[in-house]
């Protein structure tokens, strides 16, 4: 009733709290050990002063746990020795020491499930090392006590040496395993730190360098400076927003963006690329990108437009790419037959892919090249 301990045990065991209290009182009267039990359980459960009871397994401080375990173990041991059952001390004392050692040294929380990624929390700390030493000490002591109670002192000492050797042997056997585990945990921690640092740097670059590069492009009248800034911006942007820096295998989106970046650089004409959807690159998609690149090259080279817009969309049935400029346009009837670019690189390529090409243009109307490829793709999940 003082701490709600009895009630707590009752809840945990599903019996009437009054029974538990009665048991405590009886034990206390019989040999005084009930008091120890009570203290032990109280420490085990003590957490919230007003509620008193915290279900076993919930957060509890280390000290409370140790106090609790030691108290309960001593209580049980004393009860066994003094009770009329008459268990010989030769069994009880070593058993109690073993229990205390196990309780003190083992990090029981290790046995509980924890999400991956927090493994590092379980790595050997200074504290757990001391706990382990304490546990080993208890075990060794238990052996010595057990032997000395039943045998002569010299026999006990030699037996203890054997026991110590066994412990050392076990340590040698398990050391490499523990070592490997420790290394894995370190590697994981290092990797996470690396990713965090990269994210932080990315955020910083985004807020500072990217802004400046954009500004340079807008404010500079020198085309070399502008194109340099644009190229740097694009590379930085690719690094910031793409997994490219981490995952080298490129999807359709990245391949198209890179191809257009190359065109942009060659002709010093900004190309705005918008891609909807993504897919792994096949031979067909690669050829499609080449055709689109040729169209963008033409637009940048001949149209005189200030900008070229490229839009690509991957749906379940088709891949479409539109390359559009608002430049001078041309009369499709009067195209110089020598211009093999359109005929071979675009139309021919699309025919071989069983796709279609349509070109919408006219003098002064700008040009739009539309490439459609029938295509069955499993859309990449969540892309």
């Amino acid at each position, binding site marked *: 009733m003082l701490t709600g301990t009895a009630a707590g045990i009752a809840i945990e065991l599903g019996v009437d709290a009054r029974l538990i209290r009665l048991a405590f009182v009886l034990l206390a009267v019989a040999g005084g050990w009930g008091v120890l039990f009570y203290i032990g359980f109280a420490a085990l459960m003590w957490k919230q002063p007003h509620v008193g009871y915290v279900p076993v397994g919930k957060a509890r401080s280390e000290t409370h746990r140790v106090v609790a375990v030691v108290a309960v173990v001593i209580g049980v041991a004393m009860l066994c020795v003094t009770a009329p059952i008459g268990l010989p001390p030769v069994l009880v004392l070593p058993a109690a020491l073993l229990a205390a050692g196990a309780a003190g040294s083992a990090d029981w929380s290790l046995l509980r499930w924890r999400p991956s990624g927090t493994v590092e929390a379980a790595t050997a700390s200074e504290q757990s090392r001391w706990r382990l030493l304490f546990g080993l000490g208890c075990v060794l002591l238990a052996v010595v006590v057990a032997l000395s109670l039943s045998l002569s002192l010299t026999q006990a000492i030699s037996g203890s040496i054997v026991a110590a050797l066994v412990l050392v042997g076990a340590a040698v056997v398990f050391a490499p395993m523990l070592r490997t585990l420790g290394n894995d945990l370190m590697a994981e921690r290092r990797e996470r730190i690396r990713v965090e640092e990269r994210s932080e740097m990315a955020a910083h670059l*985004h807020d500072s360098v990217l802004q400046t590069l954009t500004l340079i492009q807008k404010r500079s009248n020198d085309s070399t400076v502008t194109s340099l800034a644009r190229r740097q911006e694009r590379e930085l942007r690719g690094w*910031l927003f793409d997994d490219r820096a981490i995952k080298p295998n490129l999807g359709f989106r990245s391949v198209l963006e890179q191809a257009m970046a190359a065109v942009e650089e060659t002709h010093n004409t900004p190309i705005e690329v918008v891609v909807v959807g993504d897919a792994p690159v096949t031979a067909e998609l690669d050829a499609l990108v080449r055709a689109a690149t040729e169209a963008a090259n033409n637009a940048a080279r001949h149209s005189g437009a*200030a900008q070229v*817009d490229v839009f690509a969309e991957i749906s379940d049935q088709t891949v479409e790419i539109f390359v559009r400029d608002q430049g001078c346009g041309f009369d499709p009837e009067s195209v110089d037959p020598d211009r093999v670019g359109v005929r071979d690189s675009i139309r021919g390529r699309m025919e071989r892919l069983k796709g279609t090409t349509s070109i919408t243009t006219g003098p002064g109307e700008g040009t739009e090249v539309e490439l459609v490829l029938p295509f069955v793709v499993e859309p990449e999940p*969540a892309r």
Partner: protein
Amino acid sequence: MQSSAPQDQRNRKRVVLVDDHALVRAGVKSEIGDAVDVVGEADDVEGAIDVICATVPDVVLLDVHLPGGNGPAVIAGVRAAEVQTTFLALSVSDAAEDVIAVIRAGARGYVTKAIASSELIDAITRVAAGDAVFSPRLAGFVLDAFAGSLPTDQVDPELDLLTNREQEVMRLLARGYAYKEVAKRLSISIKTVETHASSVLRKLQLSNRHQLSRWAADRRLI
């Protein structure tokens, strides 16, 4: 860069610039200063809310990334103060989830800082008039966000799906068409194009389509 026609003094829009880079603010101001009145500037979330509440501008040009909480925090703060104004997101950021976040917070459009001066002025005029402003990139983000099918029992057709017409409009905008070119291409009036665009913006803001959030999470920069 051709400047748009000089506007009547009374019709000049009052604009507040919110960007944490003084250089960028100066640059934007010099570009649009002839056509609009820049009545205030701010470089962080708190300052932005104060300036906007004090000046009540027609349009706020809002950087997506700001110290102290980013664009959506500014919009939320101004809304909480019950000040009526219109937000146009202006950013170098191409990260889809940042752009979508600021639109969902209430911005009426998104343009990149690389936009030509004349187009920026045009965009300011249009959001001030209540229109939605879609850059090709935003149109692409929208198509991506609404792509893919959902189990029918999870779909609210009013909010979670684009109509065929809206998809057509978004595709043309993503291809770089201006509103009037979209109208010509689809043989509809510019007003109808604007209606479709506003409707898409509303869906983007209100849809709880789980695809939208999952998609955003998958593209998280950090």
